[in-house]
């Protein structure tokens, strides 16, 4: 334990990162910066190769746009089709500052809400650019034929989301992520047809190739055949999503992983704010150890549903028979101002607290009721069905329980990770030529992401920011010609071959899933909704022990030269076991509560999160120092010139 704390203390003594935000008024930063960028002539663009890893909102849109510009794009994804990236599962909507509702919205207000929602831990310049680009995204997607919801007059419809005071969310039923992703995918397939983008579906990036300090290519494994190959380029754009599955159970797809990001981290890209994770309050609780994922129920349910648990830990009656006086409506009691509509982080933590007190319901005791009895009495069953019918059906399908007659059971689940590879204003990592976009970077959401903002960020990065900054980088640095014949490629490739061989040769007794499940338990118990020093220190040592066990006793079946899901997963779990430790270190180091990061030691007398701006108003970016050393931490100080940090109160 002492060892861990001293390593963490060492970590603070390191350099300051330069975000390279241009000078000038924030409203004009992006426009002025674009005007000053260097350009690559149209005829020369096809001579430059750009690798884009990932085909979600960020990757698909970046690859398509770079292709349209004329670059030779190599695009990779782990799914069997670029259309299956996990962005497809986003439900609610996408924010934009169009002010179509004439309710006082503006670019500034979207910027303000996002900075405040991120609990003052994001970079103002990036967030302002995001708010500006939000409008262009809607224009672009509408032109692509994305079937957004419409008013009878033919104009776009909006709805409110996530407790914001304006209606700025554009949506396509409950499938907004799907429709936006298919829009980006269609643009991408158009470029595949045009020959500017070469698609490598079912390929997993396993390493970054760095030549003369610049990102110049990747090593990838063909998941159908097991073939390992290298690809060279002038720049690499990483759009590989977040790392919620470090908890094993999350709302993410089962193939979501941190491997591409983590391998880049090991090649010199700093990992920023790994401890910032979003735990979504309204998910269907875990029903058993067999479970492979958790299903998100839209948080709109809290508009009419009342959250409660029995007052007595030894309650045995079915919910309908528990009288009002024996019910604890803990959100309404603790937060009379906002009641059931407190923000995600608060609602999640409160659910955990009542369950930790033994008041939780269901077989596991880790669930709370979300009750529509009062809403059905007040509004009638038909109105409730009209608003939430599809969600009730989904709940019924999964649990075989009828939410109309007995309350739903819900519990928080890992959903999104705000942390990710550190990037500057250009979205370039600390490895020159390696750009990172979408959930994979740390950039815009600070310590907590607002609803309907993830889609906005992915597309802003991919359609607008990355294509401009990658062009500028290529024009500016004029990268020397490099092919996969360079020795760095062979070295990286043989390293990956060795990793594969090693995983397959252990032939121990533990399955990959078992070990991943155990990691998830350690992470959830100690690096989940509430964290404290002793828990985090324990987590670090437990993870180290588990990692040792993994490399001694994992059983990866099959051969390297075929479809081998267990082998794929094993490599990802190995990376999660390292990332989990860095998350714990980062959480330990950040001795304050902010957004999704709650430290038991840093709370007000009423149990609310307490930020420490004096000591922690910075980004923590971790640098890999080799397999046997603790990573070192670098800081990027954050400045708030436009939105003054204040305390969030929901009482």
């Amino acid at each position, binding site marked *: 334990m002492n060892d861990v704390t001293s390593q963490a203390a060492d970590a603070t003594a390191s350099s300051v990162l330069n975000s390279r935000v241009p000078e000038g008024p924030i409203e004009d930063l992006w426009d002025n910066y674009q005007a000053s960028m260097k350009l690559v002539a149209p005829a020369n663009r096809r001579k430059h190769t750009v690798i884009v890893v990932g085909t979600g909102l960020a990757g698909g849109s970046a690859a398509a746009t770079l292709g349209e510009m004329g670059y030779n794009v190599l695009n990779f994804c782990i799914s069997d089709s670029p259309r299956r990236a996990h962005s497809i599962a986003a439900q609610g909507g996408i924010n934009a500052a169009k002010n179509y509702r004439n309710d006082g919205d503006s670019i500034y207000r979207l910027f303000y809400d996002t900075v405040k929602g991120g609990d003052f831990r994001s970079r103002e310049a990036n967030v302002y650019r995001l708010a500006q680009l939000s409008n262009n995204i809607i224009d672009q997607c*509408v032109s692509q034929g994305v079937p957004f919801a419409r008013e009878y007059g033919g104009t776009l419809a909006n709805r409110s989301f996530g407790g914001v005071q304006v209606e700025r969310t554009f949506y396509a039923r409950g499938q907004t992520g799907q429709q936006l992703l298919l829009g980006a995918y269609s643009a991408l*397939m158009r470029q595949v047809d045009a020959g500017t983008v070469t698609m490598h579906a079912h390929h997993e990036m396993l390493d970054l190739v760095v030549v003369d300090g610049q990102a110049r290519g990747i090593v990838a494994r063909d998941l159908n055949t097991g073939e390992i190959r290298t690809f060279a380029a002038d720049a690499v754009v990483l759009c590989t999503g977040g790392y919620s599955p470090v908890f094993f159970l999350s709302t993410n797809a*089962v193939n979501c992983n941190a491997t591409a990001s983590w391998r880049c981290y090991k090649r010199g890209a700093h990992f920023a704010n790994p401890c910032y994770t979003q735990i979504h309050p309204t998910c269907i609780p875990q029903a058993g150890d067999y479970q492979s994922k958790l299903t998100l129920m839209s948080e709109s349910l809290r508009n009419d549903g009342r959250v409660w648990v029995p007052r007595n830990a030894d309650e045995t009656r079915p919910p309908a028979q528990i009288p009002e006086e024996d019910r604890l409506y803990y959100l309404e009691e603790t937060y009379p101002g906002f009641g059931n509509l407190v923000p995600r982080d608060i609602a999640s933590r409160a659910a955990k607290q009542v369950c930790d007190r033994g008041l939780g319901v269901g077989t596991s005791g880790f669930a709370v009721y979300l009750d529509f009895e009062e809403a059905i009495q007040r509004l009638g069953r038909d109105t409730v069905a009209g608003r939430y019918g599809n969600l009730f059906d989904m709940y019924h399908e999964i649990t075989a329980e009828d939410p109309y007659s007995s309350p739903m059971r819900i519990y928080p689940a890992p959903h999104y990770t705000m942390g990710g590879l550190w990037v500057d204003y250009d979205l370039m990592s600390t490895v020159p030529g390696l750009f990172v976009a979408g959930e994979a970077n740390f950039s815009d959401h600070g310590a907590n992401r607002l609803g309907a903002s993830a889609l906005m960020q992915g597309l802003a990065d991919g359609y607008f920011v990355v294509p401009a900054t990658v062009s500028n980088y290529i024009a500016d640095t004029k990268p020397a010609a490099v092919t996969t014949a360079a020795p760095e490629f062979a070295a990286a490739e043989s390293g990956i071959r060795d990793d594969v061989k090693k995983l397959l040769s252990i032939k121990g007794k533990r399955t990959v899933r078992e070990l991943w499940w155990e990691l998830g338990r350690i992470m959830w118990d100690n690096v989940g909704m509430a964290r404290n020093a002793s828990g985090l220190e324990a987590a670090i040592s437990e993870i180290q022990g588990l990692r040792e066990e993994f490399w001694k006793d994992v059983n990866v079946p099959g051969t390297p030269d075929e479809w081998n899901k267990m082998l794929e997963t094993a490599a990802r779990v190995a990376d999660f076991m390292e990332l989990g430790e860095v998350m714990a270190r980062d959480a330990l180091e950040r001795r304050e509560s902010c957004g999704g990061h709650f430290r038991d030691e840093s709370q007000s007398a009423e149990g609310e999160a307490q930020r420490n701006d004096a000591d922690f108003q910075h980004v923590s970016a971790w640098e890999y120092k080799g397999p046997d050393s603790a990573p070192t931490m670098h800081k990027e100080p954050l400045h708030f010139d436009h939105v003054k940090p204040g305390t969030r109160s929901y009482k």
Partner: protein
Amino acid sequence: MASNAITVKLLIWRQSGPTAAGQLVPFTLENVLPEMSFLEMLDLLNEKLVREGTDPVAIDSDCREGICGTCGLVINGIAHGPNSGAATCEVRMRSFRDGETIVIEPFRAASFPVIKDLVVDRAAFDRIMAAGGYVSINTGSAPEANAIPVQRASAETAMDAASCIGCAACVAACPNASASLFTSAKISQYALLPQGRTEAGRRVVRMVEAMDAEGFGNCSNHGECEAVCPKEISIFNIGRMRREYLKAVL
């Protein structure tokens, strides 16, 4: 184990590679809980197989909530199994009886070569999409979003078609292995929207040519595709595709 656990007899298609011969192989799996999803039941089987030293059954899946379109199995002769409007991952084991035999096969079509066991290669769908499943508009050249009014009814019908998750159950279920429902869903979405009209003719001709070149079968209007579609996409889209085609070639 839980008292409500059941035992199922599985007959699973095993095929070691694209060119290898395959066959149905029997497995007995105990301790299956009714609340498990079908894929979690197969996870349980694979954990067991790994511990026993048997090669686990290759399946692919991702979101496990019915939207990504990755999973797809033919369960007892029906693509995506017994629940209508649901993908394989949304099927729960409570749909099966204790002791029931469940036959599990891959989506079968010449255009979808088997990669291994229950995993098939559906890249043909991407190639159909590349032939015209888009509106030709470059990033940055879009007009103000509300400059293009769209009738609400058209937007809704377009959205119905756009819900397609590209899982290929339509092909798997079609007695002719036709890709008409998939192709027509995308053609319909764009045909119904003003943004898509400009190149509607070129799109339908190119996408149909691509669909044919991939070697999918023709359509006999059986409607099995609609019945198994997790998003319940209507075969009227196929009718619309034919009208669009006729308009384009006349």
